[in-house]
């Protein structure tokens, strides 16, 4: 979801980032966890760090929190280098993956913990903690201990506790990982709501691409300590810059072949004796270069007659059907053995399905449906 008003400070060259990573490298002994990352995160953003486990996203977050220092490069918060500033002196707060609630303290005392460390007057601590507990709708549970509430409620306590000190930057480490799917989806929207209400900058670490897409204003896809692409969720999905990103975000068909640029479009010779596929590419591609066409299954149409008006048409046989209720994914095997996935919405009842196993079908997609990638 994007904010109702247009919000894209990353397109504004005048905008000053809240956080700036400058060529940051982090090594643990021989292992390079973060490899020369440069990245700007702007105030009020909901920024997602997305990647498989071990890609360095957690390390990046822990450097923001102050639990790790960069081996090389600098991290600027509001323009000031924060290297060497201990976690307790930073205007950042973190919501831990395990929630890290203090088991010996009540919900209220957990939320008030940070406020008390700032030696605020008692009535202010009381008022702020109550405000935060109300924000996450835990009023009736304020006197319970963490082991007396449910997992979802603990997650809210952790959020309230991290927000209580009104940090400039809130870090969320896999905040919804321990919740079941339904609760996770509800909580995602609540998180966005709270982020908007408080106007805090959120940086979330997750390996769940759906979660990142749902909550974030921008997503950084990471792999092996590097950032592969930073873009808005729709840009990441529609125009991935590599097959890695295309494959990591959602489902994708990838077809490789030799490039043949014609009239600003790229033809791809993907199989012997077959007409070339065409797609668009914003980069200059030399003739004969090996390229990859990435096309999303939902953009591939399936039909029994050969469509006349589509630029990319291939023939195949239905190999398998995955029925998911709302949609069906057809796994269509081409004559060369390659499997292409095509997705259709099940607007009609399953008894009236047009295709079944071993049917000969045509797959087609437009030349703007797929993106052509060099790697």
């Amino acid at each position, binding site marked *: 979801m994007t904010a109702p008003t247009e919000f894209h400070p990353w397109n504004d060259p005048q905008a000053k980032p809240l956080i700036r990573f400058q060529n940051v490298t982090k090594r643990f002994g021989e292992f390079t966890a973060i490899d020369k990352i440069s990245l700007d995160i702007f105030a009020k953003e909901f920024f997602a760090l997305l990647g498989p486990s071990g890609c360095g996203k957690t390390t990046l977050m822990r450097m923001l*929190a102050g639990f790790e220092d960069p081996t090389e490069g600098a991290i600027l918060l509001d323009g000031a280098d924060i290297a060497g500033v201990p*976690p*307790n002196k930073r205007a950042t707060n973190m919501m831990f993956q*395990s929630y890290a*609630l*203090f088991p*010996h303290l009540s919900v209220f005392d957990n939320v008030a913990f940070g406020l008390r460390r700032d030696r605020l007057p008692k009535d202010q601590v009381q008022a702020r903690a109550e405000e935060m507990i109300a924000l996450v709708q835990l009023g009736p549970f304020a006197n319970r201990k963490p*082991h007396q509430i449910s997992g979802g409620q603990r997650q809210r306590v952790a959020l309230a*506790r991290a927000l209580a000190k009104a940090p400039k930057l809130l870090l969320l480490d896999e905040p919804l990982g321990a919740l079941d799917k339904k609760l996770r989806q509800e909580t995602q929207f609540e998180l966005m709501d709270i982020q908007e209400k408080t106007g805090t900058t959120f940086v979330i670490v997750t390996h769940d691409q759906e979660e990142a897409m749902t909550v974030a204003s921008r997503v950084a896809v990471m792999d092996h300590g590097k950032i592969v692409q930073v873009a808005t969720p729709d840009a990441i999905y529609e125009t991935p810059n590599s097959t890695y990103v295309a494959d990591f975000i959602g489902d994708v068909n990838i077809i490789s072949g030799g490039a043949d640029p014609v009239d600003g479009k790229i033809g791809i010779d993907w199989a012997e004796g077959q007409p070339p596929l065409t797609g668009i590419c914003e980069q200059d591609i030399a003739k004969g270069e090996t390229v990859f066409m990435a096309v999303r299954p939902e953009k591939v149409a399936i039909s029994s007659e050969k469509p006349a008006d589509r630029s990319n048409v291939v023939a195949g046989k239905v190999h398998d059907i995955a029925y998911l209720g709302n949609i069906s994914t057809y796994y269509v095997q081409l004559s060369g053995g390659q499997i292409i996935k095509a997705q259709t919405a099940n607007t009609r009842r399953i008894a009236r399905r047009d295709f079944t196993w071993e049917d000969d079908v045509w797959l087609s997609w437009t030349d703007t449906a797929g993106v052509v990638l060099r790697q």
Partner: protein
Amino acid sequence: MWGPYLMRRFALISIPYLWLLALFLVPFVIVFKISLSDIALSIPPYTPQFDPSAGWPGVTAFLSDLDLENFVFLTTDDLYWRAYLSSLQIAVTSTVLTLLVGYPLAYGMANAPDRWRPTLIMLVILPFWTSFLIRVYSWKGILAGSGYLNQFLLGMGVISDPLTILNTNTAVYIGIVYTYLPFMVLPIYAALERLDGSLLEAAEDLGCSRKSAFWLVTVPLSKPGIIAGSFLVFIPALGEFVIPDLLGGSKTLMIGKVLFEEFDKNRDWPVASAVAVILLLILIIPIILFQRNEQKQREAEQ
């Protein structure tokens, strides 16, 4: 009727109760009975003695001969309550000292690299492999006027005259702290080892310095270990006999020593039994508190 399942359950539950009955309750009843008897020149040295062959009149005669005389006697001689108080004071002081030595040890162990921990635990338990008596005796050699400690300190030039440690309460404290240290270290270690490191990070993240995170998070969360360790030291220290006898002086007054003297030197089993019964009553309070602490901890973990 009971099914075989209930029978098995009952059999299983009854084992600890039978154990307690045979090894705690029966001996206690015997000691309690002796404490109500009178000293006599016989074997065993008290009267009346239960004679089931005399039948019912024998039982009533036996019961009418029992009285609380020995407990009254304990209140007439201030040796006894002074010994109880002094034992209490020595037990409390040595428990605190053991905690002060044991906590940093346990903390160090819990924060040691994983591969070191089994070795460290082994080192804590290792002294148990040697007889307790020999270990306490060897402290005599260390603490004596011409012992190793004094030789070392004199040799280093730290002191010019040998310190008098042996046969004082200080030696008793050293002995108790040394002997009972593992009982303090292990429960605290167990509590600290379970501590989730992210709690300390969370505390720091919320504005704690390392030091205040220790006091606000580590210490409260190791409280069950501290309480368990303290009771495990306090309870046996209160009735301790060997350590004050070997290391303490004539001025060291502990109820364990009094008890031994009544039994052995005075051969006054009834008074000794009365002393033992009172000691048990004093111990019951901390034992109940200890059990409550364990119970609470178990509940919190569920």
